[in-house]
């Protein structure tokens, strides 16, 4: 009987425990499920309202428009796309045939295979961003002074983006509204404006904002000088297109030649105003013209009197790989020798005595040359812009480019001669053209991939404005003003003064002063001489055999590229691409790309 009770009480306990446990579980479940697990919100999402009512946030978005403008894109900050425009202009070629810019120069550009993303400048998102800011700032309660100034800056960035489009494709749609999703189809399906309308739009925008922007050298930001500089350049382009181009597609392409003078004048006015403002001076700090011209590209924006506007790289927060890739083999530690200068480019640099840089090619191969006489006596800007044989003190080393050394007639390619002279230069220095781009390459150290480099990228510098002025003045018949402007630059460069100027002198000076700075491609196109210069162009490089006994080089020519390039006349307006035109029936392809 006793045992039975015991069993019963155990059962009762278990039963009680079951009830208790059930309640605990239910309570627990209720607690967990009561909080609404699906009602989450993203952390880090900033609301629209916050942005347009907080000046700091609005500014952070405006700075993103600067950032997304990626000014240095055409010279590239992405390692293997660097100096694309220079490759396309035939100034240089790159180390490896598979590098995208080379493909772009050596293949045909067609509607199926148009300019790739790193070159096409279809920054529609950034234009929309700019339009959004302009619209939202106007509607906001933010400080009117802030609104006014920042709106002007953003209008510049928007105009600059239109300029990048018009110089590639001719007339493109002028986009001044951030359309909502429910906008009518006819507004969404934008049509192309004429080329003239786009240039006029840029000029009108600059005229509007010039009075708003401060006339100071505001580091890394758009200011009055920047707006004038864009006007100076854009009007120069418009003028030369009017002068040399043809009207096509009912004016979508081309500018009436009768309007040329007006654009030369507009460019001339902008350049003059900018130079006369006195905010900027040609950089001239070092008495050695070679060192001075070299330093010009390494003195950072802010300390550099010549820079009007540019993109700042500090190496730690923002950097690139230009120097690492550009240094010649020798001091370089990683990828190097990437930018190989065409001999045709070297020829454009005259000698310091004023004689022509072009030496008959038979003469070149028929005798021996010392580095000093062939290279060392050229324009100081050459020596500051190009690495050539025996150039000294590059990261503390002498740079060689020769493929062999003759010692008493014996051809040596390995080892060192008398412990001082390498029989042959490193293979990467011999690989292509026998000369590399020096301009903008930082020689303070040999970089590796993990140390980003900090040479700033200049969008506008005063040197260009002098050249713009010279060119515009020349077409306006003010030849002496043109001559004076060029001589300012010649003087700074340590070259003899011009006593007279003509069109070709102006063009040559521009090619030399602005070499590898993302000008030549666009200049060749707007002067409509790219066909002449680039079609059928097979870039030449130099091969050097050093004669130990004479201390001179035997120079021969070689082909650093495998093909002759093409520049058919339709390239003056690049194709929009079938993928782009097929999105919108109003977006017609440029002629010649069927």
């Amino acid at each position: 009987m006793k045992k039975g009770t015991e069993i019963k009480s155990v059962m009762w306990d278990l039963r009680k425990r079951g009830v208790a446990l059930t309640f605990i579980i239910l309570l627990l479940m209720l607690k967990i499920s009561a909080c609404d697990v699906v009602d989450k919100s993203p952390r880090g999402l900033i609301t629209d309202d916050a942005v347009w009512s907080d000046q700091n946030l609005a500014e952070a978005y405006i700075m993103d428009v600067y950032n997304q403008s990626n000014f240095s894109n055409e010279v590239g900050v992405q390692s293997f796309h660097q100096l694309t425009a220079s490759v396309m202009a035939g100034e240089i070629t790159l180390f490896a045939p598979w590098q995208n810019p080379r493909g772009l120069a050596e293949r045909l550009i067609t509607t199926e295979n148009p300019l790739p993303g790193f070159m096409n400048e279809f920054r529609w998102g950034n234009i929309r961003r700019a339009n959004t800011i302009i619209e939202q700032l106007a509607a906001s309660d933010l400080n009117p002074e802030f609104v006014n100034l920042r709106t002007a800056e953003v209008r510049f960035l928007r105009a600059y983006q239109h300029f990048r489009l018009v110089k590639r494709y001719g007339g493109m749609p002028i986009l001044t509204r951030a359309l909502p999703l429910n906008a009518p189809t006819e507004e969404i399906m934008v049509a192309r404006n004429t080329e003239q309308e786009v240039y006029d739009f840029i000029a009108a925008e600059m005229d509007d904002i010039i009075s708003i922007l401060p006339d100071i050298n505001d580091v890394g930001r758009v200011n009055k000088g920047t707006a004038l500089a864009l006007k100076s350049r854009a009007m120069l382009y418009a003028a030369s297109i009017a002068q040399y181009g043809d009207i096509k597609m009912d004016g979508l392409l081309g500018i009436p030649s009768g309007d040329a003078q007006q654009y030369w004048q507009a460019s001339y006015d902008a350049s003059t105003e900018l130079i006369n403002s006195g905010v900027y001076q040609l950089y001239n700090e070092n008495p050695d013209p070679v060192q001075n011209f070299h330093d010009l590209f390494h003195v950072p924006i802010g300390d550099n009197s010549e820079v009007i506007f540019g993109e700042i790289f500090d190496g730690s927060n923002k950097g690139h790989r230009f120097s690492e890739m550009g240094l010649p083999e020798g001091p370089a530690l990683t990828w190097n020798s990437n930018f190989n200068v065409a001999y045709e480019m070297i020829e454009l640099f005259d000698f310091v005595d004023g004689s022509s840089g072009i030496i008959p090619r038979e003469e070149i191969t028929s005798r021996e040359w010392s580095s000093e006489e062939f290279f060392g006596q050229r324009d100081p800007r050459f020596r500051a812009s190009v690495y050539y044989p025996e150039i000294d003190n590059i990261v503390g080393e002498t740079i060689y480019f020769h493929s062999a050394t003759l010692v008493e007639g014996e051809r040596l390619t390995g080892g060192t001669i008398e412990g001082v002279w390498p029989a042959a230069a490193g293979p990467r220095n011999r690989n292509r053209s026998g000369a590399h781009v020096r301009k903008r390459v930082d020689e303070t150290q040999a970089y590796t991939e993990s140390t980003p480099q900090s040479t700033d990228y200049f969008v506008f510098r005063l040197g260009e404005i002098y050249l713009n002025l010279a060119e515009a003045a020349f077409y306006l018949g003010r030849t002496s003003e043109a001559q004076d402007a060029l001589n300012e630059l010649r003087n700074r460069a340590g070259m003899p003064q011009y006593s007279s100027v003509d069109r070709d002198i102006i063009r040559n000076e521009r090619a030399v002063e602005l070499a590898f700075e993302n000008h030549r491609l666009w200049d060749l196109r707007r002067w409509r001489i790219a066909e002449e210069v680039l079609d059928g162009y097979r870039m030449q490089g130099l091969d050097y055999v050093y004669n130990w006994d004479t201390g001179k080089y035997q120079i021969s020519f070689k082909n650093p590229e495998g093909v002759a390039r093409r520049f058919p006349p339709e390239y003056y307006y690049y194709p929009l691409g079938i993928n782009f035109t097929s999105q919108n029936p109003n977006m017609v392809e440029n002629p010649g790309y069927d």
Partner: protein
Amino acid sequence: MKNSYHTILLLLVIVLMFLPQLTTAQTMNHPLLSHGLSEGADEQLIEKGTGLEEALSILEKKFGVLFLYRSQLLEQKMIPDVEVIYQGRELSDILQSLLNGSDLTYSQISHRTIGIAPNDAEEILDVYQETVTGTVVDAETGESLPGVNIIVKGTSTGTITDVNGLYELTLPTESDTLIFSYIGYEALEVPVDSRERIDVELESRAIMGEDLIVVGYGTMQREDLTGSVSQISSVEMTRASVGNTAELLSGRVPGLTTVSRTGLPGESGTQFQIRGFGNPLVLVDGMERSLDFIDPNDIESISVLKDASAAIYGARAGNGVILVTTKRGETGRPSFNMRSNLSFQQPTQLINTVNAAQWVEMYREGDINSGTDPRFSQEDIERYRSGEPGFESYNWWDTTFKPWAPMQDYNLSVSGGNEDYTYFISTGHMNQDSAFRSGDYTFQRYGVRASFDANVAENMTFSLNLSTRAERRKRAAESLNEVFNALNRAQPIWNPNIPDGRPAYSGFGNQSPRAASTADYSGTLTQDSEYVDGILAFEYRVPWLTGLELEARLSYNYTSDRIKNHLREFEVYSYDPEQDEYQLRGARGGNSLTNTDHRNHSLNPRIMANYQGIIRDHNFSALLLAEWIDEQNSSFNAFRRDLISPEIPFLFAGGVDGIDNMESFSEAGRASYVGRFQYGYQSRYRIEATMRADASYKFPEDTRWGYFPSISASWSLNNEPFFNIDAVDELRFRFSYSQSGDDSGVAAYRYLSGFFIRTAQNYIANQRVWTLISEDVLPNPDITWLDMTIYNAGVNLSLYDGLFSTEFNLFQRTTDNIFGTSQETFPSTFGASLPQLNINETRDRGFDLLVGHENIIGDFGYSISANVTYSREKYIRWSESDFEDEDEARLFQNQGNYTNRWIGYKSDGIFMTQEEIDNHDVDQDGAGNATLRPGDIRYLDLNGDGELTWRDQTEIGRGMFPDLSFGINIDVNYRNFDLSALFQGASMFNFNIGGRARGAFDNDGTPHVYQYKYRWQPDPNNPSVNVNPDARLPRVELFGVGTNENNNRQSDFWLVDATYLRLKNLSLSYTVPTTITNPVGISNLRLIASGSNLLTWTRMGVFEDSFDPEIPGNTNTGNYPNVRVISFGVNLNF
């Protein structure tokens, strides 16, 4: 709205729990006894002289009641007064008459039951209910079976056995029959025959393989399945000794296609697709977990749910579901199992590059063919051929990889328990080395898993799972991509082993693949991961409703990942033996440290009510469930550079410049309600319906909830009475329809608009580094998940007691609401990232087939099974530009076409001579073939217009994931030997020969051997004439074929059929006879030898010796190869 669901469900559970008290209380005073029969009131009902028992039985029929009595009470009793009883009278009146004068009385027990008892009985119920007790055990093992369903035939009265297999049941009458049923066992009918104790043995129902199938939220008999589910068991899993669970699924499951992309230790290289769909949902014991690194020894079974069977998982189930169930304890004294494996891994396929002489020969040819001046002379080639000092040939691949890399895998588990509790504890360790000679790229895993089940209260069990796993990966800091890039570029003319052991220059830039793959040089990347999973569950068998179970369950996961990436700087040298000089060629790496911490917490509560009942020939089950998932992810990283010394890889040793750190945090949440109803009749017809309501945090309130119904049915023809073909064991037809979803590819909160902070981008102005914000994509306020509608029709056939069996399924899946942007309406000039709209639609169709044969002849047993899966997807509705041109539509339009078409030109070999070019009547280059040269590819002018234009393109192949895959399993056993082989293969997919594989020297690569052997080779003296009789590939150019527009066209020249068949696994095991092992206390000892990826057959022609068919596209950057594994193992039970 969501809250009301919770409340309703909770109330339901509470009501169910308290219901019994209410129902048992209302038994008396039913108006039954006052019933009379109105019809034929004056007819005679019971004749004179009828026995009392017979009279009662007449009344039972007439009045639809049940009498309870002890037979012996009524024996010999006659109705006292031989009075005629007429129908018109009330039942109570009749009974009164019948019992008048006897010592018996009556009383109503329940609404249809009337008890008859002696007058002096205290409590009428005590008397009339017989109590039967007994135990239920497994007929084979004698183990007691808890939870067996016992039902009184023809009633709903019943009970289930307790944990000890004991049951106690009160019976309405002693003449009843009991039905014992239990999942996995044959049901048994036992007449009571007045017995008070009935012990029963149930026969296991395993006819072939595992018959108990794990399905969503439960298990099911294989023959009860209405959907398409495949399961593989632990036995199959552990037969092959591979440490990676994912790998083990390959080729074994019809409908499941796997592709192994890499054999890198610790890398999840296996890509799964169920029927060619996207990534399936993988649940381990109900929790979302990756399959990759679970110790295979801990797995009890893996189920693959392919159709409506997966729909119970709703919004995430559209691509199918893989359910992994881990092992649990078994009653009995502690039983130990120990497995130990030693394996050796070898890359299946390393790239075969040319030797130095061939390299120089090709380089010279490349220069000449490319129009650049040759850098090597004919004499150079001769020197390398002779291999004279200074001109040796070196193989960088061989010096970077070793032929075999070891891997060890150990597991020890113990299982046991008694009637009150069972436990299973397993601990495992794996150590995998890579094939890199450097000894880096290793993987280690430590794991402990424990499960515990106990009876904690009456009818209540408690179970606990706890598992923790730690993984450690150690690699060199240089990315593998870079290592392989360097290997692909390494030139055979450079010596990889320079005398003093410094990093050797490989001929390009600053590259040294051996040093890059060595942590001592390039730095160390370590990743420490920890996984902690816990599941706590209470299960309550509701006593007053047999078959009803309530479960409350809470799972919790925690994952932590700590990555330490420490870069070192190292210099690369070449060595000149003549001058004994080292030359500095460059430097790589850096001096920095990045620490990253990821954490993930997830809490997953669930409550569930499950009912199973059998009434005569009908069986039912119903399930109601609610679950929630609440998840938090956070990560944190910190960066320092310029460490004071590379020997102090800690943040505190870093410099002040460039300090960087970042935090991120995100949450996820889901709520789900599930209902399932199953009904079966006589094991002939079965139907199952499920409904799931799912809410995902990713979507706005209005579109957050989705409802996913499914219905499936099956018909077992072989169980029909009219079916009498003896040979057929099973012939069953199945059909299912379901709707499910997929939200995995959808970013969360796409319905909100706003801005986010740009990370890793800055703008510098005014001496300030600006933090930037940028707009999010335009929102879509109606965003919701992808919707899938799946139909499946299947048949199962089994003949001659399993001698032959087959299963065939046909399926179609329509995926609607696929994300797309409205291409027709917004050109890119619009400028905004367009909102993702649910606008596109695709459809997959295919079949899977399983055929099996098994037989035993004396000591010799074998089984063969083969499976095939085919599936292909089509665009049904696709937002794209209108194609007006017929050819554009044919080539580029998606809508109406298969999703994996490969468009390109048809090739016709290469031009061997200039003459062939001159005679070619198709203008292939748009310049009258003036730019073509011998060794260029010839194309077909399909439209016959004399010119080769884009219009001549056509469909030339399929995608890179196979449309057709198959597996063949062969198991043979003879006495103590077991041999199993698994062949796996795939077809209907293509391998695109691109980049370096396409063109020698592409991206400065070192040519492959086949590029040397089959190239169009110019005569050195006459460079326009080919001298290679085997020439099948274009001539060598120094930029590969990259800028050669003619040869680089997308064409079938470069697209190869990647069909392959692979001996995926072969294993042989031997069980040591128990006569030897038993005396030393070992119950089972098995020795296993196995190999994987042993043989491969492909159809890749000239490329077949160079690429692994499972790694398509791996031609340019390079991946760690797949591995062949040979392993030896011991499996011990004691």
